[in-house]
């Protein structure tokens, strides 16, 4: 047996990163999820574009980002897949005997999920932009890329989808079962908010503002946000508050998952 003399033996974070990258790209479901997310986002934006009326006063950017409603499910699934993948097929034994400190793996997964989600979100944004070109022209909706507010919505759309992916990773790594993690993710991100919206009040509006779905505010233009803040009985979050809430969920879930990973047996 020959020793494959490596330059510097041992586990380094960049190596763990490279390993996780190889893993994510070597299963087909990753590609399907990315393609499916982009298609779903663009299709929804196109479908909504069919109902655009010239006098509606809607902004062009709000039509482009309207696909977020389905795209968020795509990046959620991506995150959950990365977070639960090790456990649902048993590769965690191999992974964590190679990296016994464990936490670098979770961190690497978070980074890689964010990068893939970023690429997915940018793809979804471009696809939505392209498929709605004709509709925006006919409806008189302009997209001015020199306008700060427009750029904010487009950039925040990407930030939102990346945040949702990391939340998905956190839930997945914490619960370790894909089915349970997906159901939890959908409930927390979409369904609870909708249920609470039925009974507006100080308590329900506050809870809604603190759910991760609050991050969807990132995709709304300033007029919509002002209108939302005017009607809520809970905290008024402004354009960035929703993003902060989503970010806190992502970090909190990763910390909880890291705690479980670090403190408990892997059997």
């Amino acid at each position, binding site marked *: 047996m020959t020793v494959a003399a490596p330059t510097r033996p041992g586990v380094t974070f960049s190596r763990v990163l490279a390993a996780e990258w190889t893993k994510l790209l070597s299963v087909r479901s990753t590609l399907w999820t990315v393609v499916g997310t982009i298609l779903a986002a663009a299709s929804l934006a196109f479908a*909504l574009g069919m*109902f655009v009326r010239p006098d509606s*006063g809607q902004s062009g950017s709000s039509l482009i980002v309207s696909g977020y409603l389905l795209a968020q499910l795509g990046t959620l699934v991506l995150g959950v897949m990365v977070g639960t993948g090790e456990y*649902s097929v048993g590769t965690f034994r191999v992974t964590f005997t190679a990296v016994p400190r464990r936490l670098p793996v979770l961190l690497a997964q978070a980074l890689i999920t964010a990068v893939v989600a970023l690429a997915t979100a940018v793809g979804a944004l471009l696809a939505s932009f392209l498929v709605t070109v004709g509709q925006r022209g006919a409806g008189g909706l302009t997209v001015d890329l020199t306008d700060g507010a427009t750029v904010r919505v487009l950039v925040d759309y990407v930030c939102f989808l990346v945040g949702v992916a990391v939340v998905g990773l956190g839930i997945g790594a914490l619960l370790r079962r894909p*089915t349970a993690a*997906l*159901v939890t993710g959908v409930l927390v991100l979409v369904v609870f908010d909708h*249920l609470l919206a039925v009974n507006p009040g100080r308590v329900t509006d506050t809870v809604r503002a603190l759910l991760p779905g609050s991050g969807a505010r990132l995709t709304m233009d300033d007029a919509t946000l002002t209108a939302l803040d005017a009607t809520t009985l809970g905290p008024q979050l402004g354009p960035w508050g929703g993003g902060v809430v989503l970010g806190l969920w992502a970090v909190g879930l990763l910390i909880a998952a890291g705690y479980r990973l670090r403190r408990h047996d892997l059997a």
Partner: protein
Amino acid sequence: MSAPAASSATQVPARGRTAGRGATFARVVASEWTKLTSLRSSFLLAAATVAVSWALTYVSANASSVDPGFDPLSSLTSGLVLSPLGLMILGVLVGTGEFSTGTFRSTFTAVPRRLPVLAAQVVVTAAFALVVALLAVGAAVLGIVPAAGSREINLDLTGDGTPLVLAGMTLYLAGMALFGLAVGALLRHSARAVVTAVTVTLVLPIVLMLASDLSTDPMAPAESGPPPAEAVVNTIVTLLPSGAGSLMTTPDISGIEGAPDLGPWGGGAVLGAWILVPLAGAAVRLRARDVT
């Protein structure tokens, strides 16, 4: 096997033959029942369904009990926005359980004709779900009792179409378990099946409604009927399993704006189609393809 003098009986039974005839349908059903009831997740989901049904109904009835024209019976169905989820997941787990855990090998070597297994899963899931649905509906009734008491309203569950509502609720809940089973049996992969079923029943209606809100201008004057986007969305939402199912629980409401009025029976038929079509697909896949 040459037993030395079979003195006790005139004929020695062949080895392993306990009672002949092999895998009859009743035995397959018994086997599936054992599988369903030996999993902890079945009972957890059942308990969650009943609990959610009670809690949402209780909260909703309490919240609206301050309204002037409060009718506690109108809160009966408010748990249905979430309570079908548990039974649907239960159905998915029955449908995919064989494949996600690899037990299908032993199952289909025991029942090589395969289809009886699927039929037995339908029977078993329907029976289990019906019991859970009855409990969940009972819990919903209990949920409105305190609110009715606070306004000193006598609950009459026998009049005014209420029995129909209760029956519709039960069938809707049980139907969602079968829908889950059908999707699970078709897709064979529990995560995929759960995502699909949850998306179709829960997420799509919400997304479509939010989307139609985005594309409609609330300030626009209501000319004649709802705007086109809303009509399309409402039609789609009505034809989804959850929309069709809720029609079964609202016999006296003639559908939602812009959507075809199907009535409770029509709603039941649409939900039935959502069960039967994937189930037929699953049967074809089971029968025509190798299971590996």
